[in-house]
């Protein structure tokens, strides 16, 4: 059985998205900046795509900037807010310790430019509180950037409350909604979101397309300089197939959000409950404030990558917080941030579902996981001692 359970890493492109892309890869190949009919047909598609994103976010089309992905959107949001803050002499930014690296590394860059960054430590349940944000606000705070939902442990942050607070305090509020968009209801007006990042490949759209929503009046700093595309705020010939696929996927995801979520939540909870039966395991992240598709646990005494390899042999595509492949030997900064010790964090497993997953698949995962954990534990010198009480239990 083949089970794709790594939808937080990327999703399969939906038929709807592909159908929207194909015309742009065949007949409608024009450059939207071109005056002629071939170009203007593309320009119309570009406008339509912009309107789609605006509609489902409750924003204006002119507030939508297309980027090459979630990372670029995050970069541009933070750099822009920083530039605005700097002009007012405000150089303090509030964020969280478990943001995506697209945010964290951009914040590092801002620190090099003289900004001060406060990274809020998430509580053990992975849900930042409004009080934490409130306490961190200073007179020179120019930006609060807090992710809508965490990419590893799936916890949903109190975005509307943080938005209201920031509005009251007159501070720009950006949210990395890469994991949330298409999965959770977003209303930039009601939630008082000033800037928001989206990446299409997280909701069955294509890779290489992102959206930066920025409220009217927020002056964007270019990350990419050049032509006057995107109102001069993002240079480069538009990725038309990608943009059209992204818009189709977003509309589709938003239209079917509730039914998809209901399906995923039932699978998720079955999987979470089932896996939590394995001894010396612990669920990461709040059980309620959680993305419909996110399952994340740590299994003591074993290491994530070897678990993934064995799952892969069984046809199950999953991921681990250990991020071993990316060349880092550090365990997930997210798991460390919610207080998991290094050795426990190494043994994490993330299974992220989409509406394409079935109950049969969940049953299959539940059937193979205990064997895999046992097999690795038997090989593990750590487990041996954990079992015999020679090593301190971590969980």
């Amino acid at each position, binding site marked *: 059985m083949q089970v794709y359970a790594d939808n*937080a*890493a*990327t999703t399969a492109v939906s038929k709807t998205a592909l159908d929207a892309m194909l015309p742009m890869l065949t007949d409608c190949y024009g450059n939207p900046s071109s005056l002629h009919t071939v170009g203007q047909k593309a320009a119309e598609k570009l406008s339509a795509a912009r309107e789609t994103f605006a509609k489902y976010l409750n924003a204006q089309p002119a507030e939508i900037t297309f980027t090459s992905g979630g990372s670029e959107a995050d970069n541009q949001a933070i750099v822009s807010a920083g530039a605005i803050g700097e002009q007012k002499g405000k150089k303090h930014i509030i964020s969280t310790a478990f943001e*995506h*690296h697209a945010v964290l590394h951009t914040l590092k860059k801002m620190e090099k430019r003289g900004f001060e960054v406060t990274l809020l430590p998430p509580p053990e349940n992975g849900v930042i509180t409004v009080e934490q944000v409130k306490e961190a606000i200073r007179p020179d705070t120019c930006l609060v950037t807090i992710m809508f939902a965490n*990419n*590893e442990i799936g916890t949903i942050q109190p975005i509307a409350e943080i938005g209201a607070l920031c509005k009251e305090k007159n501070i720009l509020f950006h949210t990395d909604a890469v994991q949330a968009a298409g999965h959770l209801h977003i209303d930039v007006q009601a939630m008082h979101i000033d800037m928001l990042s989206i990446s299409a490949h997280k909701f069955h759209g294509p890779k290489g397309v992102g959206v930066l929503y920025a409220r009217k009046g927020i002056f964007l700093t270019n990350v990419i300089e050049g032509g006057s595309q995107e109102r001069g705020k993002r240079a480069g010939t538009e990725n038309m197939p990608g943009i059209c696929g992204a818009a189709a996927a977003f509309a589709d995801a938003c239209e079917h959000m509730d039914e998809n979520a209901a399906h995923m939540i039932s699978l998720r909870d079955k999987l979470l409950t089932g896996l939590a039966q394995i001894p010396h395991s612990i669920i990461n992240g709040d059980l309620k404030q959680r993305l419909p598709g996110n399952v994340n646990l740590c299994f003591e*005494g*074993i*290491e*994530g*990558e*070897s678990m993934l*390899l064995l799952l*892969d*042999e069984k046809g199950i595509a999953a*991921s681990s*917080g*250990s*991020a*071993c*492949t*990316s*060349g*880092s*030997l*550090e*365990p*997930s*900064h*997210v798991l460390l941030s919610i207080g998991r010790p*290094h*050795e426990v964090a*190494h043994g994490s497993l993330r299974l992220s579902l989409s509406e394409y997953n079935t109950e049969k698949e969940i049953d299959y995962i539940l059937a193979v996981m205990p064997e895999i954990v046992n097999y690795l534990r038997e*090989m*593990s*010198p*750590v*487990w*041996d001692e954990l079992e015999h009480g020679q090593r301190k239990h971590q969980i």
Partner: protein
Amino acid sequence: MALYSDQVMDHFQHPRNVGKMDDADGIGEVGNARCGDIMRMYIKVDKDSQTISDVKFNTFGCGSAIATSSIATEMIKGKPVTEALKLSNKAVVEALGGLPAYKLHCSVLAEEAVKAAVKDYYDKNGIAYGDELKMDCEHCTACDSHQDAGSKA
């Protein structure tokens, strides 16, 4: 899985000499759980020939940590202790048909696990040894390398 060579996958999927050894003559443990890799190697030494008559390992770690442990046991089994000491991480990597660059530290761990086991055997039997068996943790840069490179989709 293209990440690893066929040899690595073979040793990961079918690790040789895995398990504990209750009557080991030498036990070496290297790495630490913080870094995500611990290897424990057990050796049984034939006192007459000073050869490694049996070897076992337990490893907590990634696919290549398990594979390097496994192949290292194969490479020293039946060999004179002095020769086992010459096992280099390079030889381990070669025998596995290569490792991704950021996994090379696993081969270093395997080399060190063997040395630690031999050292333990020497210590227990009062056999003198030279500086090459003085373990230095600085040798292994596993914990501080690449720390900036990680990311997660």
